[in-house]
């Protein structure tokens, strides 16, 4: 197992279970029920599933904000929850909304994680500017979030994540709230930069088109994050993407793997 994390480590999820107790009724809700999943270093994986299937709970557990009820997530030989501080500067996230701090300029928002990592001021500025430039925001570094469009704000959020130079990138419905053209453009940029950076990228989405467009691999989650299908996209020629889409849709509707997914 890799503890120094010179490159992205393997992510192993074994028997992962998350049970919540509802505050009002006291009833138990099984958000994730014994999930097994392995993500290889530098892999770009899309996790697709319907609303309420446990994708976001999985996301929270991946970034270490929620502990497992049972089972584990190991990144190398470390747990993102148990070894929380170990992952400072090794993991970065892009959320559905930009989640920029409104009192900070674009530059200061992009610098935020570097400040938390204790990087020297000059390095913070240089790295943040580099990524803002790569995302086409060189003329807006001193703008406050309310002075930017939704797409531009999400670009700042992406720059903030990449500025960390993380080994693992996580995106939770990061492009879902944008218009189609902006979302496609931003998704392409995100993927290009993710592949260039050599990070493992995990993208959570409910949009099948997006999942097919981004992933080397697609994990299809059913209810309680049951892994319904594990698809290696390169096994599907582009001209069969329509069929792949239909097969994933059928899988989600029936909550069992469509036979076409076995063929590849």
């Amino acid at each position, binding site marked *: 197992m890799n503890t120094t994390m010179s490159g992205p480590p393997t992510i192993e999820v074994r028997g992962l279970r998350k049970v919540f107790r509802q505050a009002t009724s006291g009833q138990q809700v099984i958000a994730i029920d014994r999930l097994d999943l392995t993500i290889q270093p530098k892999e770009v994986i899309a996790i697709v599933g319907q609303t309420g299937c446990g994708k976001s709970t999985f996301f929270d557990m991946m970034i270490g904000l929620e502990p497992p009820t049972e089972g584990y997530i190991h990144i190398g030989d470390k747990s993102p929850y148990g070894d929380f501080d170990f992952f400072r500067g090794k993991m970065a996230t892009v959320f559905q*909304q930009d*989640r920029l*701090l*409104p009192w900070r300029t674009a530059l200061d928002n992009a610098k*935020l994680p570097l400040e*938390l990592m204790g990087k020297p001021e000059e390095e913070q500025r240089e790295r943040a500017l580099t990524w803002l430039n790569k995302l086409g925001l060189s003329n807006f570094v001193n703008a406050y979030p309310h002075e930017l469009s939704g797409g531009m704000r999400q670009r700042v959020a992406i720059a903030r994540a990449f500025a960390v130079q993380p080994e693992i990138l996580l995106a939770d419905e990061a492009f879902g709230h944008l218009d189609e053209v902006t979302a496609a453009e931003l998704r392409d940029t995100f993927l290009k930069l993710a592949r260039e950076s050599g990070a493992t990228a995990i993208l959570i989405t409910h949009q099948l088109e997006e999942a097919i467009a981004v992933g080397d691999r697609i994990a299809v989650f059913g209810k309680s994050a049951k892994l319904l299908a594990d698809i290696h996209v390169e096994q599907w020629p582009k001209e069969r993407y329509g069929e792949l889409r239909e097969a994933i849709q059928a899988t989600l509707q029936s909550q069992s793997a469509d036979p076409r997914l076995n063929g590849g």
Partner: protein
Amino acid sequence: MALEEHRESVPVLSFPRQTLVSLLIFAIVWEAMSYFAPSLGIPPFAIPSWLKIAKSIATITPIDVVVTLARVVGALIVSFVLGLALAMAMYRSETLDKYVHPMVRILMAVPVVSWILFAVLWFPGVEFRIGFVLVVVCGPVFLIDTLDAMRNVPRELRHMMRSFRPTTLQFFLKLMLPAIVPTIFTSWKVNISLAIRVVTIAELVGAVTGIGHQLSVAQELFSVSDVFAWTIVLVALLFVLEALVARIEHRLLRWRT
């Protein structure tokens, strides 16, 4: 450049014409009442003319103004630091919050006069008495306001911040504190007004300096013009402090414009 111009174009303070007009009307009505008071059977000293009030203002001792100002500012700073520190601790610890919150509510329900009487009975030093009363009245306001503001920081921002794994200190310095700055300013404005009123009452009892003490002397001398003059000073002091806070607020909250 365009952004900078836009940000700077917002006025810091405005002094509307309507305010001037209403003040002028009040001054004229007062002067008329002063002029006609004797013919209505009202003693002349009860409604002094503006000339007499101006003479009283000219005799105001700046040291008393400075002393009261120092008491107010000093006590507000102590109240703010204590209130914020306890609010941060209560935000972190639900158990502490459960124990402290009810006590704070009780403290806030106690009338100011009761606190003054307690202070006189408990403490021998005048300065400590006044400081105690101001802190015990203003501290809880800072505490409740900042605690509520911390709890209202959007979950999404707290979530985002935690995903980058800050230390506890970084979490407060980089997220919570900047996020509650607007509430802190509102709380300061409310507390300045409260402190000015409370300090006056506290100084009436036992103090030998300060505006409250001078008001007490004026009352003993039946000098309405002196009472009026010191009251004008108090109101002016309040406006100056509020304007100062508004100016700092505008500077720090430029991002909102």
